[in-house]
């Protein structure tokens, strides 16, 4: 484990009485490797390790019988703090239907997550309208329609202009008193200005209270670029990390949180529609640190 590795390095400190910066830096190098292996972004790692350094050079580490475990504990605490508190995932307010918009790269899990969210809300006694605003991908609408019929939730959308589809759905939701509208959008590249512009137009048209980035939990270094661009266009209110039911360390969680400041609200932990869990920073921190 990381704690054991750090212990091995920092045990050299003991019995010396004064803190050896070089030994601590060796331990920090080990930490850095662990984080890079866990897919945390290079720059995020640099900043994180720099913030740990003064804490690692503290009296409390020197005084500890197991300085490595002490540093590992400090690292864990700091990571949990960075990953954000466990706030209430979706904020309900007002009488208008809550519009939740999902966006992200191709294949990240948006359509499946849209249905998962709809099921979650339905179980909270909310009336939900799912909206298939992906008119590009073959059978995308059929996919969402199939999922929505599986969970007994209404589904709108299909053909035409995604902005018009979303607007029409929002109008219908208000008229027919739905509690929530979940917009499933097409996967797109953050460098595709036309498609990013489409997202901006959807936001302008329906003012979604929740603008969530759905990101693959197995993403590597690129997570930062993607998150930054989507955040710049949408001003994200939250992030959902998917496919964390495998053995990926999930370093992307720290990266996207660090560059957007948006809270991670949910994690996808499987392909079934029940497989959506609220985000637990401590669990993800342990996973990233291995």
């Amino acid at each position, binding site marked *: 484990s990381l704690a054991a590795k750090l212990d091995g390095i920092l045990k050299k400190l003991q019995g010396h009485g004064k803190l050896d910066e070089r030994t601590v830096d060796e331990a920090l190098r080990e930490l850095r490797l662990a984080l890079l292996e866990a897919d945390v972004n290079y720059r995020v790692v640099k900043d994180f390790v720099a913030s740990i350094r003064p804490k690692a050079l503290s009296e409390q580490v020197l005084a500890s019988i197991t300085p490595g475990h002490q540093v590992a504990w400090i690292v864990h605490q700091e990571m949990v703090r960075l990953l954000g508190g466990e706030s209430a995932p979706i904020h309900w307010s007002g009488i208008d239907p809550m519009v939740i918009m999902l966006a992200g*790269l*191709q294949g990240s899990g948006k359509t499946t997550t849209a249905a998962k969210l709809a099921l979650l809300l339905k179980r909270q006694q909310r009336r939900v309208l799912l909206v298939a605003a992906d008119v590009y991908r073959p*059978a995308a609408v059929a*996919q969402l329609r199939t999922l929505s019929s599986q969970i007994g939730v209404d589904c709108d959308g299909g053909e035409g202009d995604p902005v018009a589809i979303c607007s029409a759905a929002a109008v219908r939701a208000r008229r027919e008193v739905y509690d929530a509208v979940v917009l499933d959008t097409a996967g797109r590249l953050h460098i595709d200005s036309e498609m990013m512009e489409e997202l901006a137009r959807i936001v302008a048209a329906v003012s979604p209270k929740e603008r969530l980035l759905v990101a693959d939990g197995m993403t*590597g270094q690129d997570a930062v670029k*993607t998150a930054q661009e989507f955040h710049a266009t949408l001003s994200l209110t939250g992030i959902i990390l998917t496919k964390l039911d495998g053995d990926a360390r999930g370093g992307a969680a720290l990266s996207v949180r660090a560059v957007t400041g948006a809270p991670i609200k949910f994690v996808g932990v499987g*392909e079934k529609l029940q497989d959506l869990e609220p985000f637990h920073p401590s669990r993800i921190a342990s996973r990233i640190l291995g």
Partner: protein
Amino acid sequence: RSSSAENRQELLDELEELLIQADVGIQTAGIIRDDVSAYFAVHPGATWDDVLGIVRASMVRMLSAVPPAEAAILPPIPPEVVLVIGVNGGGKTTTIGKLAYRHVQAGRRVLLGAADTFRAAAVEQLAIWADRVGADLLAQKSGADPASVAFDAVAAGRSRGNDVVILDTAGRLHTKVNLMQELLKIQRVVGKAHEGAPHEVLLVVDATMGQNAIAQARQFHQSLGITGIVVSKLDGTAKGGVVLPLARELGLPVRWLGVGEGLDDLEPFEAGAFVDALLS
């Protein structure tokens, strides 16, 4: 500018950042860094461009060290059967559409087997691709046994005289034992339908994947034997550098690159061009 010791260290740090951010991973970055340090020892005045030349050569060497697949050497008795696998959302179904298009353009008769019987609208998605590119489709009712669909597709390909049968499978995480067993069963029954099949087992790897792609590839390779990799979504900003450890540690060759969502957006892999794009 020529380098002093301080400049050289700065250069090595910049190089490390470039490589790590391309997802080549710590081990591979370390090997390349050692190659550059060795070069510096002989050429202390090396510039950034000289260094990039060494890095490029080192990477091309890693990628070219992989032996070619047997399928490329021994043409199979038709139909050639290609099994496409990988984790969820990587681009398997779309890649199959693109591969089929290539074959059809080359005058071959292609049959697509819709062996993803699990995911919502998976069969419909493949059906649209078959229609788009001019390939035949074999599918069964939703929820059917994927091995049964795969068997039928290969058997049909044989009796109808198709040149190529490409089998789509459901995305699956390599950690799910029952899903890996399902894949093994598909491979086994396909071999029963046509001796020597599947001739190609292609693993589709999303270019945005991090180091977990190595664990994925290792498990899929151990279970089934992968003959080639397709790196998808290289039209984004991710570099797909994980193919370097896949070549080094698992000896897996890259066959194709997905560079978009259209039927034409597939390129044959070429090490030099790939490395140039990674380093750009």
